[in-house]
């Protein structure tokens, strides 16, 4: 029992000591950066619990079947939730301010999405006039 108490106390102190990470502001709760834009594709409670299912479901649909979604995609998340750094540009995943890291650092969940995907919002896919008409 004492060992458990010591562990809990240690964890509490660790979370307090990690004050540099914005995710741990106040020590106990992650601070989720505010998103721009109107409403999300689903309500916040649903997204909190299910965003990972959305992402893994959609990745098979778009990569393997070519069913590309209008808004329910990783790039869509980045468009609204990206956090601007001190230079005014969106921060990358190496920055603890990145909105994914805000919670995932706190929850100690390692995600590897951004080992391949760009963690910054990108411009829309370039479609030049020459490519507008697909050769049929």
């Amino acid at each position, binding site marked *: 029992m004492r060992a458990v108490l010591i562990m809990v106390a240690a964890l509490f102190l660790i979370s307090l000591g990690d004050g540099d990470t914005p995710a741990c502001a106040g020590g106990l709760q992650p601070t989720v950066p505010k998103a721009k834009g109107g409403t999300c594709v689903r309500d916040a409670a649903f997204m909190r619990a299910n965003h990972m299912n959305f992402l893994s479901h959609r990745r098979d649909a778009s990569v393997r079947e070519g069913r590309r979604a209008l808004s329910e995609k990783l790039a869509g998340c980045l468009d609204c939730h990206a956090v601007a750094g001190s230079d005014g540009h969106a921060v990358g995943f190496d920055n603890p301010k990145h909105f994914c890291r805000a919670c995932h650092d706190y929850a100690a969940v390692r995600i590897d999405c951004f080992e391949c995907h760009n963690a910054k919002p990108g411009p829309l896919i370039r479609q030049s006039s020459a490519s507008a008409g697909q050769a*049929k």
Partner: protein
Amino acid sequence: MTGRRDFLAGAAALALTIAPGVTLYPMAQAALTSGPASAKNRWGMLIDANRCKADCSACVGACGEENAIGPAHGPAIQAQWIRKVDLRHKGSGRKLSLPVMCQHCAEPPCADVCPTGASFKRADGIVLVDKHRCIGCRYCMLACPYKARSFVHETVTDQAPHAPRGKGTVESCTLCVHRVDAGGTPACVEACAGLGHGAIIFGDLNDPTSEISKRLAEYPSAAIRADLGLDPGVRYQGL
């Protein structure tokens, strides 16, 4: 595999409360901008070696820019989705220059050997690496007779949003699948046409009215290593 996903998608059409506080939600039927890829299409390219200029590498440059393939630390580990190959006939001395990329085989050996199902062929004939499943074993690179695939050796940053790339995975020409799904043509085709060379045309091999099908019907063409019977979607003229 598709069958199981379809079943799950169908089952998820109803929100289901299986216990107090435990609810299975349906995944949204998202508004789609494209797809699903259909077996009615078979996307391919026809490369005219007579029109391809030996001193031009616009297609290679356009591919690199489109898919954000930056320079690597040394040529040995430089990713090549498309490359220019110069040929010279020993007897006659005739010189040829042409681009070679993933040939988008109908029977892709890369997909045959892939232990995880990462290498696969879409219904519309585009051969891709699903990097969510790729473990970087590089078996596909050995299997490909066209040396069309590259392994990513270094950490990648500043990827194009439509072309995720990451260390430890294998990659190759995607036929600019993001453009094709949006109704466009691959970046290399566009660059070649933009210079007035028009050495690469892109289109639907299954559509007899498409320009590529008409050209294939009218003029002789060849597949590289046709003896392997892989039925590539990339064909060559003037070899």
